[in-house]
């Protein structure tokens, strides 16, 4: 899992200069507790953007 994204990088290919997620970043994407918190935060941020747009 630690090499999840790295294995796709090709030296001097299109994707050589980008970043790939490590195992913690990958795990956090589907961690229910962390995502529930992010859900609240993202919703608040989106509502602020919506309110600034009207």
């Amino acid at each position: 899992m630690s090499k999840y994204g790295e294995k796709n990088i090709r030296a001097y290919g299109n994707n050589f200069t980008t970043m790939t997620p490590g195992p913690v970043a990958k795990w956090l994407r589907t961690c229910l507790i962390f995502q529930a918190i992010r859900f609240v935060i993202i919703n608040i941020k989106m509502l602020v953007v919506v309110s600034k747009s009207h």
Partner: protein
Amino acid sequence: MARLVVLGGGVSGHTAATFAAEWLGSAHEVVVVTPNAKWNWIPSNIWVGVGQMTKEEVTFDLAPVYAKAGIIYHQAKALGIHPEGNETSDKPYVVVESTEAGKAGQIENIEYDYLINATGPKLNFAATPGLGDANGLGEFTVSVCTADHAVHANEELHKCIEKMKKGERQKFLIGTGHGMCTCQGAAFEYIFNIEHELNKAGVRDMADIKWISNESFLGDFGVGGLHMKAMGFAVSSKIFAESLFAERNVDWIIGAHVNKVEKGKVHYELLDGSMGEEEFDFSMLIPPFAGVGLKAINKAGEDITATIFAPNGFMKVDANYAAGAYENWKASDWPSTYQNPTYGNVFACGIAFAPPHPISKPMSSPNGTPINPTPPRTGMPSGIMGKAVAHSVCDRILKGPDAPLHEASMAHMGAACVASAGKGLFTGTAAAMTIYPVVPDFEKYPGTGRDTEYTFGEIGLAGHWIKHILHHLFIWKAKLKPGWTLIPE
């Protein structure tokens, strides 16, 4: 009694018509002219295109909704505008042609006091030979621009999955089908949904997936890219997008103008002037957009289309169309009231208004071929400007013709965007993004052009849940169910 005619029943037109009907009440008329019998929540077409939703889940019949709202509904396509009336009457009117079963082809004139042009785009498949027929159901490629297109795309996708299950390797090519396309975001979401479905089907290792687009860098999205707050950095969307592609082992071709499509092969020209070919077994290429081809005629019967519409067929509004070169562009070039400069009782919103210029820096190949994204104006901005225009028209009807107009410039407006990858509540992930403002303002926000406090992006289940909620929320709102006016655009 005044009559407002709204051309188009998409996100912008439907928002404008329903709010106008709510605010005007029965004392005035709101008329909607749209060739479609059904309303379509287009963002969810992506899920239809991979078989995770049905056409019925993303569409509903317009007639009962408009009947409930007291809106007069014509299932017809607009052909022309006569903003000065004709030789026998000073009353402006639009000419429409019915698309309703049993009445198809019948021509009718509908008079108006105020007109909102929210027709959306013509899907200009013809701009690229071989990209698709007039209905978009091309022989060689598929599309997800309409629910029917998405159903067709899903059928073709599953043919490929069956082939892969039998051991036949397949090449997928997703992106934009012309150098002047917009809506890269839809193709972006579709490519990752395909990748997700192939993983689910256990055939990902049998697929080569490639992106092709007219963006000069990955993550341009037609808005010149964006910088978003992440890990204490203001990170370019180029890094964000490239990371997603690298992680999912999807290769890309950018700065590409697809100039011809054949069976199993596209031909393209790159920004450096070189020509290339790419083979595919399955390809979804977004077509470029154009105006729907409305004609404008003055009282004397003379064609004044060029006065009201830009050459691309979109309607001129209060934008600065003389900004010139990229170096001269300003956020203030973008329209705020969407009022036509020639006829004050005519407005255009959503995709139907003519933008002053692209948002992304214009580029062309050494051969002179323009290759750059055209500006997106769908989704949230489309709804916000539809509501603002409806507000302006209602004020002018109810308070008098000098009532001030409401403003909704894309240079002062943000947008929220969620690009899913999969549909499962616990297995899918999505990229949730906000951008503020949509049009960068380099005078107000030097450097990035945007407020990085409100421009962010992240990947995870949370965004995915939001995508699900937005699907149900906006269909609820569009059906005018209880509390619909409280749901923001």
